[in-house]
């Protein structure tokens, strides 16, 4: 373990994860291209390049939707967490499929003209004041740019180079990208032909993303503990509500989360962010006496937030106290690696 950049190796799970993604995407495109046309039963077929553009475009939108569903699903049910930990691969594949869509569109709608392709793309529709007829291509370009930035910076190297905080903020751009992609689909394809399939994809997809995010936020809000202005101690929960060898995430502020762990009859609190890549320690488990990060397995001792020797990572610790059967945490963090006496439960769950 080190704070230096350490490439995370591939393993069987990751190959399997990527294999399923690839299979789902290939299946989508193959069925769209070869099974859907005879079922559509058009008198004369849609042009093949347009059909291909639609196959790739709708596939990329569906994938982006699923990517954004994984986050709240994992917050609502921790069994989805394994899908979250490899989500970057999902994003990169989505970007390549979106590129395919863009190339098919460019090489058809914007080809065969004296105006160069990219110039034609940017200049041929400028009716920005119109709702019907809005230049939805611009929204598609924006979505593609966001996906490009995220795909290119998805590698661990960029996470280490930019730092977890900046990297995370950069990758929150996915919401702007999704909004742009939704507008692109709505103002382009859907306003043009509000078919059952497109309507379900657009409103079902975006609606599910919105609803699940609200549900996850409500759940998180319920678990949020805030300090009163005249007291630095923040209520957490009765100690036995924390499962043995597991943690509970406490949100002190939008930028500060704490992981409170119980290991048998001792309780301790550390910063929720792993020193490696800001992984959520509170979703981890105590393994071999150490709080173990679910992302890459970095471990920290409960009492001082230090990785066991010879490793050198340190995270902040927090003071805990138990009053009238309720666990409280002090809102001010100790410097990383500071020893903090754990709270010990007496028989029956009380000190």
């Amino acid at each position, binding site marked *: 373990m080190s704070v230096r950049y350490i490439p995370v190796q591939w393993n069987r799970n990751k190959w399997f994860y990527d294999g399923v993604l690839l299979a789902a995407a290939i299946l989508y495109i193959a069925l769209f291209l070869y099974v859907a046309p005879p079922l559509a039963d058009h008198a004369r077929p849609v042009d093949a390049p347009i059909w291909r553009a639609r196959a790739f475009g709708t596939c990329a939108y569906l994938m982006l939707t699923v990517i954004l569903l994984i986050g709240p699903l994992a917050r609502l049910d921790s*069994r989805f967490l394994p899908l979250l930990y490899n989500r970057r691969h999902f994003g990169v594949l989505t970007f390549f499929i979106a590129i395919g869509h863009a190339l098919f569109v460019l090489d058809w709608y914007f080809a065969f*003209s004296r105006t160069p392709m990219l110039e034609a*793309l940017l200049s041929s529709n400028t009716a920005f004041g119109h709702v019907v007829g809005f230049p939805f291509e611009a929204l598609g370009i924006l979505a593609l740019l966001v996906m490009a930035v995220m795909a290119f910076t998805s590698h661990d190297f960029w996470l280490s180079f930019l730092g977890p905080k900046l990297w995370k903020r950069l990758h929150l751009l996915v919401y702007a990208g999704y909004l742009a992609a939704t507008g692109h689909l709505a103002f382009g394809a859907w306003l043009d032909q509000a*078919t059952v399939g497109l309507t379900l994809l657009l409103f079902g997809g975006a609606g599910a993303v919105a609803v699940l995010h609200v549900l996850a936020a409500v759940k998180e809000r319920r678990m949020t503990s805030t300090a009163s202005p005249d007291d630095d101690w923040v209520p957490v929960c009765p100690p036995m509500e924390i499962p043995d060898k597991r943690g509970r995430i406490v949100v002190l502020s939008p930028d500060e989360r704490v992981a409170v762990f119980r290991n048998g009859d001792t309780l301790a609190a550390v910063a929720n962010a792993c020193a490696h890549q800001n992984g959520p320690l509170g979703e981890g488990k105590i393994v071999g006496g150490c709080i173990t990060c679910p992302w890459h397995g970095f471990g920290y001792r409960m009492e001082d937030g230090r990785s066991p020797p010879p490793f050198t990572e340190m995270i902040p610790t927090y003071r805990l106290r138990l009053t009238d059967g309720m666990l409280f945490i002090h809102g001010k963090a100790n410097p990383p690696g500071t020893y903090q006496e754990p709270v010990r439960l007496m028989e029956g769950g009380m000190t």
Partner: protein
Amino acid sequence: MTSAQPFFVGWAAKIPKPLRAFLAAVCVIMTVGFAGAAVLVGATQADPDGGRFRFDIGPQNLEGTVIGGAYPALWVTKGTEAIPAGKVILLNGNGKTGVQDRVQPLAGKAVAVRGILMERGSLRMLQLGNGKQGLAAIEGDAAAIPQAEPLGRWRLSGEICDGRCAAGAMRPGTGLAHKACANLCIAGGQPPVFVSAAPVEGESFFLMTGPAGEALSPEILRHTAEPVTLDGALTRIGNLTVLAVDATGLRRR
């Protein structure tokens, strides 16, 4: 989260046993969901209701008189089975480029043309071949073109399209998703066509020009592919109906 719940570490080579069935189910649901979505989205796409290139009947060799103007046409004097004499047919070029540069110097003159017919219902055009084989002046007097017959002013609802794509160069060649392409085609000189929501004087497709027969104004072209209502003067030249409009009467529906 309970202590009994399996703990998955991202880098671990093995998935905890209790999670395997759940994740396998997720994989199956996702794959089946993608398959279902592909068929649903793909198979419910709207019929492009499109025109087509008539490659099946081969190139058409015609003779006639060039009708000049912003968007040139041919008054056919010697035709084919598909395009008989006595018809007016719009002329267009390859890709998104009109044929004004080639055709305009021959306005009012007798010419021989060769090209591929494109048609969508009563909307018919000829894509000129390249070089002199596609268009050449011929000996002899040019036949007089039919007198323009004014049909009065009308208020029409429908869509402004580029005639070439609407006639079959693309399927679909109309609609909002096609707006940028339509703008490029019309800006390149291809004839704009108004597709009326309801027939007027038995016609649903109208060649569009400015009020004095000039090219359409950019203000009108901002509304291509959108559902609009506009006021204009209709004129019939043979079988071709021309709609002369300015932007003042144009409203978005």
